[in-house]
């Protein structure tokens, strides 16, 4: 261990080594009094004698003075502090307010300066003006500036644990809102738009600066924290069906399908049309019912799974043999664009245009309204996510003495281990905001405090802690415990069950392996993997393994030659079995997995001849 430490230690510099001055990492000279030197440089920069893009740092340990002015350094602005006093005085702030002062001017007169990571190393920066001491060299412009864009709009980050903030950021990016105002004119391959977005009752100052309220991504929910017959256990949510019927959490989902008339070498091309019945791979007539004469579906057509949106025929994959009459028979292949399995909706718009390659192209946008249903995902801005477990009508929801019933009931177990106190505080603040009619401020470190809300609640005649007696919706009896109820901003996240749910009992298999396909889009099965197999072995369930891995997967019957042990063939014309190696021999049918047959083929390709020795099954 000692050896390792030795390696890490910086080489000791000779005591008489001069302090080197490095400009952008290049040695330009030495200096005797580095501190004085750097102070002089800094003063000159602040006085405007040196460019503001310069940064200085005296590294005492390495005996270096670093001067940097090259590109690519991350720099951020700070208010300069002298003698424990911010140089951004109230007078200057007034000037800023009435437009006599500008940012650029503040920088040039030495009130605000930009520092890079190295210069920052030698500074003491206060977060708030109240924290200033004579030792401080700088002051943050505002505590929220220490956060990035995404965190800065989250409420009360200082009350939450940091992993939850990270998660809240990740989830805020998945929330549905108005991602753009011209969504009606766009053809994004998938897009969600919320029906009635609201701005949060509790917002941060950056939220206002960013004008987020103009394209908000969430709604203010009345939330109660209590268990609800187990339907909100393990991060499930109980939502009011009545609120959903009134439009809560409703969104629209657009999906654009596109296809083009491709041209092939040899002058052949695709054609948009209603395929003729003779077309190879013709689907049932019903599938084409939405198409107009041009082979393209009408807008506002109600399309279901596997309905054709654009009828398209393609030339055959291989050149046709010349028929008996000596002419090439015109055969076409069905290649229509259809709605993927499991999806449905209304044709919203149809766009006929040219593709980049210059082919005629159709883009058909399908719209479907997504009403919250069991399985949809919602999250507050505190990393508290959940999935709807039950939609309960308002008459069955608990209610307060004022007749308020919650839109959402979350489980109390979601709180203690995650330590999202901000969630509780936002609920209380939201409740107060509902009644005072004023937005609450939830900016990091400088937001409204609990005391404010408590006195507000008291003045409004509520329990100051936000707890209320709820009455059971089923019996009308008062619930003994007081229940925390408030108003908090919730986001609908774009993980909707209707776009995800998938079942398979029978379905397509892969060409190569004869095993079931994979993935929802291909109507596939769920993989019964190695570890699952091990579990069945461990359990001793031999018959079940066989069923999963063979009977429900790629079982085949192959003919095996008794003499040479290779796979035989059936001659359907002669109606006889034969072994391609022995020609005349006794063949037996053997059950095996197709994957094993493939393995035998691959071993043969290696130059090894695998033989099967058959025995009657005991």
């Amino acid at each position, binding site marked *: *261990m000692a050896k390792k430490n030795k390696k890490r230690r910086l080489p000791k510099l000779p005591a008489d080594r001069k302090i080197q001055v490095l400009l952008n990492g290049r040695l330009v000279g030495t200096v005797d009094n580095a501190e004085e030197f750097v102070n002089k440089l800094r003063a000159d920069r602040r006085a405007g004698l040196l460019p503001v893009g310069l940064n200085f740092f005296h590294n005492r340990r390495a005996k270096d003075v670093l001067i940097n002015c090259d590109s690519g350094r991350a720099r951020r602005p700070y208010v300069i502090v002298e003698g424990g006093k911010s140089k951004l005085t109230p007078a200057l702030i007034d000037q800023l307010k009435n437009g006599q002062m500008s940012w650029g001017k503040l920088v040039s007169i030495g009130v605000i300066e930009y520092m890079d990571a190295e210069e920052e190393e030698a500074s003491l920066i206060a977060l708030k003006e109240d924290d200033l001491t004579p030792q401080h060299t700088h002051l943050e412009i505002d505590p929220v500036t220490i956060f990035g864009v995404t965190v800065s709009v989250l409420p009360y980050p200082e009350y939450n644990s940091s992993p939850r903030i990270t998660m809240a950021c990740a989830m805020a990016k998945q929330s549905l809102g108005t991602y753009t105002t011209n969504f009606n004119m766009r053809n994004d391959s998938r897009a969600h738009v919320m029906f009635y977005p609201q701005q949060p009752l509790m917002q941060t100052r950056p939220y206002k600066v960013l004008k987020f309220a103009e394209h908000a991504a969430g709604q203010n929910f009345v939330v109660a924290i209590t268990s609800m017959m187990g339907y909100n256990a393990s991060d499930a949510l109980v939502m009011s069906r009545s609120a959903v019927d009134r439009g809560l959490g409703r969104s629209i989902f657009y999906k654009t399908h596109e296809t083009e008339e491709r041209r092939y070498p040899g002058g052949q091309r695709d054609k948009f049309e209603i395929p003729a019945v003779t077309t190879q791979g013709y689907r049932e007539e019903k599938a084409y019912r939405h198409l107009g004469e041009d082979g393209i579906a009408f807008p506002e057509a109600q399309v279901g799974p596997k309905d054709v949106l654009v009828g398209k025929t393609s030339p055959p994959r291989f050149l046709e043999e010349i028929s008996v009459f000596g002419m090439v028979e015109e055969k076409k292949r069905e290649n229509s664009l259809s709605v993927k399995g499991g999806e449905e909706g209304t044709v919203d718009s149809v766009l006929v245009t040219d593709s980049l390659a210059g082919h005629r192209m159709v883009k058909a946008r399908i719209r479907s309204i997504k009403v919250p249903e069991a399985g949809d995902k919602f999250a507050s801005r505190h990393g508290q996510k959940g999935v709807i477990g039950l939609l309960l009508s308002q008459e069955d929801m608990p209610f307060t003495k004022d007749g308020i019933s919650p839109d959402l009931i979350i489980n109390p177990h979601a709180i203690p281990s995650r330590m999202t106190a901000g969630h509780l505080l936002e609920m209380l603040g939201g409740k107060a905001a509902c009644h005072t009619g004023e937005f609450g401020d939830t900016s990091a470190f400088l937001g409204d405090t609990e005391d404010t809300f408590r006195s507000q609640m008291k003045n409004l005649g509520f329990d100051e802690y936000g707890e209320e007696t709820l009455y059971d919706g089923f019996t009308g009896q008062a619930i003994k415990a007081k229940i925390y109820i408030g108003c908090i901003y919730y986001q609908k996240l774009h993980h909707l069950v209707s776009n995800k749910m998938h079942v398979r009992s029978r379905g397509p298999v892969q060409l190569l392996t004869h095993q079931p396909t994979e993935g929802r889009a291909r109507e596939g099965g769920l993989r019964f993997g190695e570890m699952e*197999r*091990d*579990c069945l*072995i*461990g*359990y*001793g*369930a*031999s*018959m079940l*393994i*066989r069923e999963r*891995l*063979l009977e429900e997967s790629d*079982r085949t019957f192959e003919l095996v030659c008794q003499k040479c042990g290779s796979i035989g063939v059936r001659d359907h014309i002669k109606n006889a079995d034969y072994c391609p190696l022995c020609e005349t021999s006794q063949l037996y049918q053997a*059950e*095996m*997995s197709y*994957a*094993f047959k493939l*393995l035998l083929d691959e*071993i043969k390709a*290696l*130059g*090894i*001849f695998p033989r099967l*020795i058959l025995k009657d099954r*005991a």
Partner: protein
Amino acid sequence: MMKISPIKVAVGEAVGIVAAQSIGEPGTQMTMRTFHYAGVAEQVPTGLPRLIELVDVRKEPKKPLMDIYLKGAAKDDEKKAQAIAADIESITLGRLGEVVEDFTQKKIVIELDPDEMSHLRVEMDEVRKKVKASLGTDVETDGNTLRVKPKVNSLRMLRRLTNRAKSLPIRGVERIRRCVVLKGKDGFFIRTAGSNISGIMKAEGVDSTRVYTNDIKEVEKMLGIEAARNALVHELKQVLDTQGLNVDIRHIMLLADAMTMNGQIKSIGRHGLSGQKAGVLARAAFEETVKHLVNAAIQAEEDRLIGVTENIIVGQTVPLGTGLVKLKMKI
């Protein structure tokens, strides 16, 4: 007998898989925990690195270690225990001073540090004798400096010899790099860095019946395969216990049995247990598929489809659990 029968394992129980899962499941947790213990200096590898070391059967553990228990009075007398420890600890020439080569005269110069010498209670004579015996008879003594003129021709040989001289054992048991006297449940014992069973067993004042080492390979060499199996069980249990993982001892014993079953320690993996399975298909399914298939072809090997893997590959019931029972009567 009464007690054994209810805990006997049923015929066809997949004990291997169950053992693998029982060790593997807490093992995954250990993986997660190991990487989160960043920066904590470990004296001896524990947790996952140690587990891997055991299962891979490395020639020598990363930090070989011994616990030496003492005979007679030394057990309760720290001073005496210290004295034994000092005798055991291997002192090399390099520890007593600086060993450098003198290229101009083709000599090895040994500058001994008198403080270190007295601290370790090593006499000048002792050193000189050892140096004479192994480096060359031509030894000049000048105060604390020894000059040896070895019989070498090239400078390269001189350099090599000098390096070897640094690890020249002066006293103590070889490979025992450091000793600490610790207090255990029944008196003092010595913990050493470095392992050497035969050397320690012969040492004075040592209870040779209770010598412990964490070097499984050495146990196998010195004490035989049964001892190695027990040592393996002990070490595996130790690792899992220190991590607070509760794995039934029988799973560990099965693992140790599998690793030692043919009289020689085998590792788990390509070069050991998995690489020596009976069936061609089972081996090919694990690693180095082509190698196994080609070798099987050269030797015209036949797979009797005895194992689990083979039967799954061809698509038959596995000879385990419910797949084991067959109809006695042919219909």
